[in-house]
Each structure stands twice: as C-alpha cells, then as structure tokens.
C-alpha cells in the first residue's frame, strides 16, 4: 500500500498567522449511547474518558471529542486506526453502536500565532472570546461545515476532505498580512 496522502499534502501559508494543513490524521466516528459502561471502558483502554458535551479531551497522541449526544470523534495516530477499530468492535460488541474510519474523509488545519483567533473570527459565526478551554465547536467556516478547538496556543480546524482547497483558500485570505483586525 502507498503512503496515505492528505488532501493538500501538507500545504502551508505564512500570513499574520501561520496556516498548515496537517495529517493524515487518524479519526474514528463512534456513534453509541455515551452513558454505556463499555464505552467508558473502551476509551479507558486508550487512556481517554467520555468527554462532556462540546468538549475535547486529550491524552498523549490521542483525543476524543464530543460531536453530538450520541457521537464521539476519536483522533489518533493514523497507523492506530485499524487496530483501534478492532478493539472498539470487540469491546462494544454487546451494544448497539457504529464505529467507522473517517480519517480520509477529513482535512485538518493548524492556525497558529498571536492573532490566530482573528482568522477564525472572519469565517465563523462564533463568539471566540467565550470559547471555553477544551471546547470543540462545530460550526461553519464561510460556506462549509467545520469544527475547531484551541490547542497549543493556536487552533486546530477540521473540515471535509473534498473542500480542503476551499478551506485553505479561506484561511489564506483571512490571514493575509495587513488584514489584521
């Protein structure tokens, strides 16, 4: 098998904020009753726990984000996806659940710099000042769906893979030097 190629193959841009497409990144969507004990147990094996609504929790190279009342997003190294899916399928076998690899359905961007928040403020109808620590916010970036959270002094933003070029265009235009708010 060839090496997996992310949507933009690591493209980056240096404006007043630094924009980088990162990845490929492993992602698993997990739909289930979040209150079920086997879910917590399965996450515990990964060093994670069930996040509170709209929160993302990180442990080492893995994170788990709350997407909706019956959906989690596991973020992990790309190479771990197949094995993790297997673990989940076994651990949750007695439950009604759906776990699917969505690593390749997404594009992931990092927005970094003192004014990284300004880039998002131009694109997302979100009150960034009120964004809580470890809050995973699902919203739109201009005309497409996006999710982001604050991390390591910047933001990580996830979009669908097919619109990665569009999202890179948005982030580029919005972080152009001289366009600081």
């Amino acid at each position: 098998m060839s090496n997996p190629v992310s949507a933009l193959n690591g493209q980056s841009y240096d404006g007043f904020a630094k924009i980088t497409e990162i990845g490929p990144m492993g992602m698993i969507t997990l739909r289930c009753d979040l209150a079920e004990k086997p879910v917590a147990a399965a996450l515990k094996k990964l060093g994670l726990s069930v996040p509170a609504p709209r929160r993302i929790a990180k442990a080492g190279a893995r994170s788990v984000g709350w997407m909706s009342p019956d959906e989690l997003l596991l973020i992990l190294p790309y190479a771990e996806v197949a094995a993790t899916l297997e673990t989940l399928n076994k651990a949750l076998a007695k439950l009604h659940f759906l776990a699917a690899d969505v690593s390749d359905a997404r594009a992931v961007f990092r927005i970094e710099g003192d004014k990284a928040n300004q880039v998002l403020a131009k694109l997302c109808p979100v009150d960034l000042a009120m964004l809580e620590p470890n809050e995973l916010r699902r919203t739109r970036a201009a005309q497409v769906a996006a999710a982001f959270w604050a991390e390591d002094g910047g933001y990580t933003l996830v979009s669908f893979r097919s619109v990665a070029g569009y999202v890179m265009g948005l982030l580029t235009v919005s972080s152009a030097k001289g366009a600081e708010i």
Partner: protein
Amino acid sequence: MLTLQCPYCGVQAEETELTPGYEAHLKRFGPGSSAEEFESYMFARKNPKGVHFERWRHAYGCGKWFLAARDTNTLEVFGTYPAQSSEPPADLVAKIKAKRPEWPGYSEEGNK
C-alpha cells in the same frame, strides 16, 4: 437573523448554522389513511401570526433536529426542546400562556 439555542449541545446558534424544517408535531399518516388524513399530514400547514411550533436542525453543529416555540410576528423565542417530543413540554406551554394570554393553547387545531 434569528438565533436559537440547540437543546442538545447548548450552542446559541445563528440562523446560518441551522436549517428550517417547518411545522412541528405533524402526525404521519401512512398506508390505510383517508385522503383527508393524508392531506392534513402532507399539505395542510399552520401559518399563524403569533405562537408557532417549528422544527429546526442544527445542521452546521451537532446535526440534531430540535423544536422551537416562536412568535412569528415579534420573533420572540419562547423556548427550544428535543425533537423526541410528541407535544410541547407543559412548562413551555405555561410560559407561553403567561406571555400571550390571548393564545388559546397548544392542541392539534389550537394554533391554526
């Protein structure tokens, strides 16, 4: 442009993050129903000037459908609640009654 709070994820979402789904609490009539029943389900929609119950989906958010009670005239939002409700919650109905004493109350026909 409206804002509605998604009862599932708590986000105070603006209209551009939502998609509308028209009237709430419709009763589905399937095979075996009369022409009148099917018409009531498929075509006869309430269009009140005042209190109205509607479906909205937090499409650019958690993806969940929810229901909203809203005044179509003043755009006041009385409340939002989960889509898994066959009628508006009693406390919401009481709240609307207090604010709109002239409102006849929720029923199949009441807010036509």
